[in-house]
């Protein structure tokens, strides 16, 4: 019996210690930003770490920090544990956050459920289809944000800009990523409408990536396209090694994916997305009601090429094809990403 009591006690001590160390370093964070009690508290919550999501977060943090407003920013990351999202958001609510910025679809949906009835404004970032995600209905007066949807026509235009005689496009995506799936679905619908041939392969996890890429290549595609897919973005080297060995260019949905080895993108400029989300948050800080701010789509798409990648699959595109594209990675490998 003594042992049972000691176990319970040690568990309680563990919990109390954890909670206690949570309390103490918080106060300096608050007082560092001007020391006023009524600083506006903003929490940014992301589901996992990877280049694009981190870029959105960092841009929002920088933009809000430079705004001159008295804002305390708190960033949280669920590290891929979906059950942690609502736990993190509940902590934000308990700490009395004034505005929350959830990044990606399920984070925004969890935020809606957790902050239901509190009136706390929610500014989502990087949700492809806010209506389908349930973020635009009548119960969403406090919810607005920035969608990262890319028009399908733009994607196909990107491929035909470099390869006017492309016969067949290969689409590769992770089937569990809402954003990636909806981008590919729209692209396929556009291809059907325009009578462009395509092949598609979806993966459930990263271990299938190489096989999936090789399957598409074996089906004779002339170009590969992957949208803003968080999973594939984390393994661009595997993907591009397989494609470039076969001389097939890889087009993708994010500049970070081009920086990591993709050939060209018209896609979400995550810095631009972060800026728009931060601008919306600032309008709400200054007193605009979220209800008066309809959700936005990107006002500017990013067009980038990677010349080192072009060398790897032996590109021989005319100079004119590169007009309007920023060089993200030079032929010698010098990267301008994030500069």
């Amino acid at each position, binding site marked *: 019996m003594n042992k049972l009591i000691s176990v319970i006690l040690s568990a309680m001590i563990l919990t109390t210690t954890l909670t206690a160390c*949570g309390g103490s370093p918080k106060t300096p*964070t608050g007082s560092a930003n001007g020391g006023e009690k009524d600083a506006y508290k903003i929490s940014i919550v992301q589901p996992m770490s990877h280049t694009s999501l981190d870029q959105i977060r960092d841009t929002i943090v920088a933009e809000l920090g430079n705004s001159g407003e008295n804002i305390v920013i708190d960033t949280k990351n669920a590290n891929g544990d979906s059950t942690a999202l609502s*736990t993190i958001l509940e902590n934000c609510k308990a*700490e009395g956050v004034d505005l929350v910025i959830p990044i990606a679809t399920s984070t925004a949906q969890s935020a809606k459920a957790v902050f239901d009835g509190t009136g706390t404004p929610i500014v989502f970032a990087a949700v492809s289809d806010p209506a389908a*995600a*349930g973020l635009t209905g009548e119960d969403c007066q406090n919810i607005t944000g920035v969608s990262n949807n890319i028009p399908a026509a733009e994607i196909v235009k990107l491929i035909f800009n470099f390869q006017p005689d492309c016969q067949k496009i290969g689409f590769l995506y992770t089937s*569990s990523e809402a954003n990636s799936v909806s981008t590919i679905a729209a692209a396929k619908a556009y291809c059907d409408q325009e009578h462009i041939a395509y092949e598609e392969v979806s993966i459930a996890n990263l271990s299938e990536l190489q096989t999936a890429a090789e399957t598409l290549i074996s089906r004779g595609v002339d170009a590969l396209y992957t949208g803003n897919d968080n999973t594939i973005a984390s393994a661009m080297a595997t993907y591009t090694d397989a494609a470039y060995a076969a001389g097939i260019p890889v087009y993708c949905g994010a500049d970070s994916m081009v920086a990591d080895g993709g050939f060209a993108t018209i896609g979400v400029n995550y810095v631009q997305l972060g800026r728009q989300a931060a601008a919306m948050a600032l309008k709400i800080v200054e007193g605009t009601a979220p209800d008066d701010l309809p959700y936005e789509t990107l006002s500017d798409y990013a067009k980038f090429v990677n010349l080192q990648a072009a060398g790897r699959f032996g590109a021989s595109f005319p100079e004119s094809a590169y007009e309007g594209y920023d060089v993200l990675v030079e032929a010698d490998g010098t990267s301008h990403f994030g500069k």
Partner: protein
Amino acid sequence: MVYYSMLVFALSQGLLYAPMALGVFITFRILKTPDLTVDGSFVFGMTACAAVTIAGHPVLALFVGAAAGALAGFFTALLQTRLEVEPILSGILVAAGLYTVNYTVLGGQSNLYLQYDTVNAAGSPVKEASPTVYKSFSALFSGVDSPFLDGNAQVLLLTLVIVVLLTAALGVFFFTRPGMAIRATGDNEEMVRASSINADLARTAGVMLANSLVALSGALLCQQQRYADLNCGSSMLVMGLASVIIGQVLFGDRGIVGGLISAVGGSLVYRVVIQAAYKVNMPSYTVKLLSTLIVVCALAVPLIKRKLASTGKGAAA
């Protein structure tokens, strides 16, 4: 008050995941075979529940969710008993196959919000939130304005009722003839086969029951958070095992009913500790390691207790 609402939230989450812990308890402790179907059947319960909820039947959706889990369990048991596939492999195979099933149930997408298309008073098409059991339950409290009875507390109350009824029903079931047959199969399958009990049938029933509980957990979570997502099943088994083991460490080995109650208790304690861990002002990526350490510590406690007991005896002698 801040801590009150956080505690209520953590407990409500703990209760939502409690049926899953009960399911893991049945396979891990009663049938004594780890069942890895959990990661898939949790999401299956969630997606089946989402589809039926959107069709407008929130209560039926919970039963359909549980039935979906039972179906998943049936296939796992089929692999185990008829094809004599290793239990661990059967679970992995069924969970992997369920990915496609779940994807299809969600209509070829990875995320489904509980809403339906309708027309508003002005005649233009709008999306309306689908009714859920939690929404209907909250409506009962519309006149009550107490800070102690906020949305989280309402979720806690309803889930508590469900979990208490469930635990009681399971407690009774495991003393009926079929329940005893499942327990006997876990304890000594050879002996069961030698007697007149059909061990394969008992094992199948046990795995189906366990997975229907896991799926019910997914269904409840789906209605509470109002969306289904394919990624929600990741690391479910680890969470379930952690709950069962923490429960066992804290409340001891106390037979079948005690075991069921301590699995629920373990789920509550686990969510409270995780909530506290995220509350701590340290980088959130450290929580993963922390939660692993918690599980490892819980696993090590029985051994440490035994060692302490034996050295204690040695010193006394």
